[in-house]
């Protein structure tokens, strides 16, 4: 498939580029914008971005592959990110992650994001989300949840239609 930028995305990207004296600096923000619209970043999108920013595709690919938030394949409709790091782990993050995996039929010991076969959920262990005082914490998409008990987790999942 080839990548088609909507006029709205073009406009957003042009605005982003204007924030920097050097076009290349907009790379990360442009990738965010693309991901917001498409949910992931395809190779064609990388080429499009490179062209837009007068770069080589490898320049963009280098950063796409560095940042875990940027995705190279389509993700579940709801992306669940459970904090894994120490304070949350002390607060039961592993059990919470396990709980999600068990409920959704995923392997809690696997590394990296996993998507349910129906494409509804992607579950991932992530590093400290800077809210350690309300451990365990998690995000669904851009929404943030604190002090997540298993009951609350079920409620959150239930809210994902």
């Amino acid at each position, binding site marked *: 498939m080839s990548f088609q930028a909507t006029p709205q995305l073009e406009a957003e990207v042009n605005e982003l580029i204007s924030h920097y004296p050097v076009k290349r600096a907009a790379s990360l923000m442009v990738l965010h914008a693309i991901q917001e619209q498409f949910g992931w970043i395809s*190779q064609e999108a*990388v080429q499009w971005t490179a062209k837009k920013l007068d*770069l*080589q*595709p*490898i*320049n963009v*690919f*280098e950063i796409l*592959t*560095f940042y*875990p938030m940027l995705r190279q394949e389509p993700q579940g409709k709801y992306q669940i990110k459970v904090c894994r790091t120490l304070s949350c782990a002390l607060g039961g993050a592993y059990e919470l992650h396990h709980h999600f995996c068990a409920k959704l039929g995923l392997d809690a010991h696997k590394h990296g994001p996993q998507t349910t076969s129906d494409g509804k959920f992607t579950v991932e262990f992530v590093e400290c989300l800077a809210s350690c005082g309300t451990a365990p914490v998690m995000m669904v998409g851009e929404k943030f949840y604190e002090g997540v008990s298993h009951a609350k987790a079920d409620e959150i999942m239930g809210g994902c239609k």
Partner: protein
Amino acid sequence: MSAAATTENKPAAPAIEKIKVKVDGREIEVPRLIADWSGKLTPTTMIQACELAKTEVPHYCWHPKLPVVGNCRMCLVEFGTPALGPDRKPVLNPDGTPKIAKSPRPAISCATPVSPGMEIYTKTPAVKQMREGVLESLLINHPLDCPICDQAGECKLQEYSVDYGQSASRFVEAKVHKPKAVDLGPRIMLDAERCILCTRCIRFTRDIAGDDALGIINRGSYNTIATFPGAPFDNNYTLNTVDVCPVGALTSKDFRFQMRAWFLKETKSVCTSCATGCNILIGSREEKIYRYTPRDNDAVNASWMCDAGRLNYKWIGRADRLQDVWVRGQKSSWPAAIRELADKLKQAPAGSVAIIASARQTNEELWLLAKLKARLGALSDAIPREGESDKLLVSADRNPNTNGARLTGICFTEMGINLVKIADGIASGKIKTLIVFGENIVKRAVAHDKLRERETISEVVDEHGITAELLGKLDALIVSDILPNETTRLAHFVLPGAAPAEKRGTFTSGKGRVQKFMKAVEAPGVARAEWEFLQELVHHVTGQNNGLTVESLFNQMAREVAAFNGLTWQALGDTGVTVQI
């Protein structure tokens, strides 16, 4: 992008202040500034000071011709600087020497500038321990497949492990596995497990070749060198990355698995594929050439060469090489052929002989041909060879010795303008004998009358009117060449010559650099270096004796040819001398 650093045509550099530093207790003076990879003067670093002090500091990522990144950490050293008191004045030891405040932290010598009075310690236990640590880290994910690695013998990981490593690794964890045989491009393979992520290849292709094609993907221990998927690494300089790669991660498809590097004999030579004259090493074994690699010459090619030039050696070993002397279709011998030719030429009326030489011949050979030309009153020229130039090394002039042909008087400034006259002379029957060296002239010939329709000389130089038909009118066609071709097949006399790799001699590059090259392999059969039989022929025809060795020929030529005055074979050294062209 920036061109290779050369010292060519630079205005005399202003005197650079010297500063005193100590390397492992030995005081030396170093310049405060040194040209960096791009030729810009930048503060001298510790590693450069150590080099000047002849102290080796092991390093992977640092390369004098590439931007500094300081990522391998192999070059860590300890150091101290003169201690300053509260009054900002140096504190003195009881014996009056300045007190040195040793830095509590080490520094990478490749990126840390020296300062006056600095002391650099490269051999302390701490330095030794740091190197061991870095080596151990580099080896933990390394496959350690040296026995089947092409870099073996030229691998800095292998070398430093012996010199600076500790014998046993403590590593008991599972290694990170990465792709082993990645096809990076038409000429390069990557073994990502052997890669130590020094980024020399990335910097070379981005900052020197101007093709930002390589990068690192993924993160942390999973970092891997890569191209963008579907975008092969393919520019005319890719093979230099194999040279700069300190380990066996990048290999040349051409050389892979061909020969262990340590079996190769390395001969200093010069590339003949264009007028740039990149300095090279010819790697050979048992009269077979296995590879060309660039040889440092800051006045010419820095440390690089183009892929086209590098791979242009296979023809030398072709089975159909001319290996015998032929006279009118019969196998002959050198003495017989030279004698007959000398007699013929001595008797030739002035103006009845023409010479078409090749700007691929050496200065000495062209000069000897010029001697024949003078004696015979011959018209002469050479065949131009044009292509596209690039921003780094490749010259539009694809002859290695156009300037040699000019300076020795074989051709005019505009090479090829005499070809029309020679064609006319043959057509009119005035020219009866044609001597051709190393050019398959028939190949580019265009029918005489057609050529007449062309308007400008410059069109004529590439295509001349000396067709096979025209050659049939000659009494004698004397051809020396290396490989058989249409012209050698038409010749009455065939004199098998030697490839540059099979002889010694000099070329004058496009920028006037006179550079010598050495013999790497023997010519096949009775084929001989052209200068050898030419000096015999010249001796027989003119009575002159110009010497029997290439040294004496060169030195004699230098006395006679104005542009070369003052040069000697010896003085050319390994990297040549630039003359006024």
